[in-house]
């Protein structure tokens, strides 16, 4: 057994979906990564919004802002905004959880699970409140 193995066995790639039994901290960890990736779409859309204002104002493409609004107000657009708000609030609570952990607090199994649950519930509640406000103030009309 002193010989070097001819090939190092292939290790599972992070986040080890193949070998992990489900638990809430694993779920929120994956969720934090997934929401972070989803928010790249949000950054692209906000950049598109700025670009649409810019090229409309500069007269390069006067219809650009109208085109952006047609997308933003469409049912598909609203679905995208809803998804982004959910991803944003979950990434916010997930990020806060990480910042708490970075202060070396909350690593006990019990508190880690509680933080995961509160982050998950908090993100969903914030999203629901946000959309209730949008509808009740008439900002979004279906």
């Amino acid at each position, binding site marked *: 057994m002193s010989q070097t193995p001819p090939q190092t066995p292939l290790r599972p*790639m992070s*986040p080890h979906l193949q070998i992990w039994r489900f638990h809430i901290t694993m779920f929120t960890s994956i969720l934090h990564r997934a929401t972070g990736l989803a928010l790249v779409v949000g950054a692209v859309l906000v*950049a598109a919004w700025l670009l649409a*204002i*810019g090229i*409309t104002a500069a*007269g*390069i493409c006067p219809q650009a802002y109208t085109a952006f609004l047609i997308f933003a107000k469409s049912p598909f657009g609203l679905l995208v905004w809803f998804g982004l708000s959910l991803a944003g609030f979950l990434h916010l609570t997930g990020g*806060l959880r990480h*910042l708490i952990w970075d202060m070396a607090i909350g690593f006990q199994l019990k508190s880690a699970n509680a933080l995961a649950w509160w982050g998950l519930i908090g993100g969903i509640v914030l999203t629901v409140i946000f959309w209730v406000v949008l509808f009740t103030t008439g900002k979004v009309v279906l």
Partner: protein
Amino acid sequence: MVDSYLRQRSSKDWKKSEKHGAGEWLAERWTSVALIVLTGWALWSAFGLMNQGYEAALAFVKAPVNAGLMALTFVITVWHTYMGLNANLLDYFPNSRALKLLNLLFCLVLLAAALSGLFLAFKA
């Protein structure tokens, strides 16, 4: 024997962050704290601009404070995004320089698009 073989492999294949110290780790944290404030401000502003039309959006962007904060928000967002995407790449494609370069290019294009839109609106 096995240990040294693994170490050799790890130095080549595994996460590279340890090679540039705590700087990236700290940058991830500081950008995230800054983004809580900046995206909060951006969301509040977006809420105010919703359903107000093009003129209101243009007037918002033309105010120097808003333009400056928007630019700052984008610089930090793109920085945070770059580090986040890189963390993903390191996990799944640790050796791909092409993907790392693609990530950098994507982030630069995203930043350039946002800043040029902001600049055009501001100058108009």
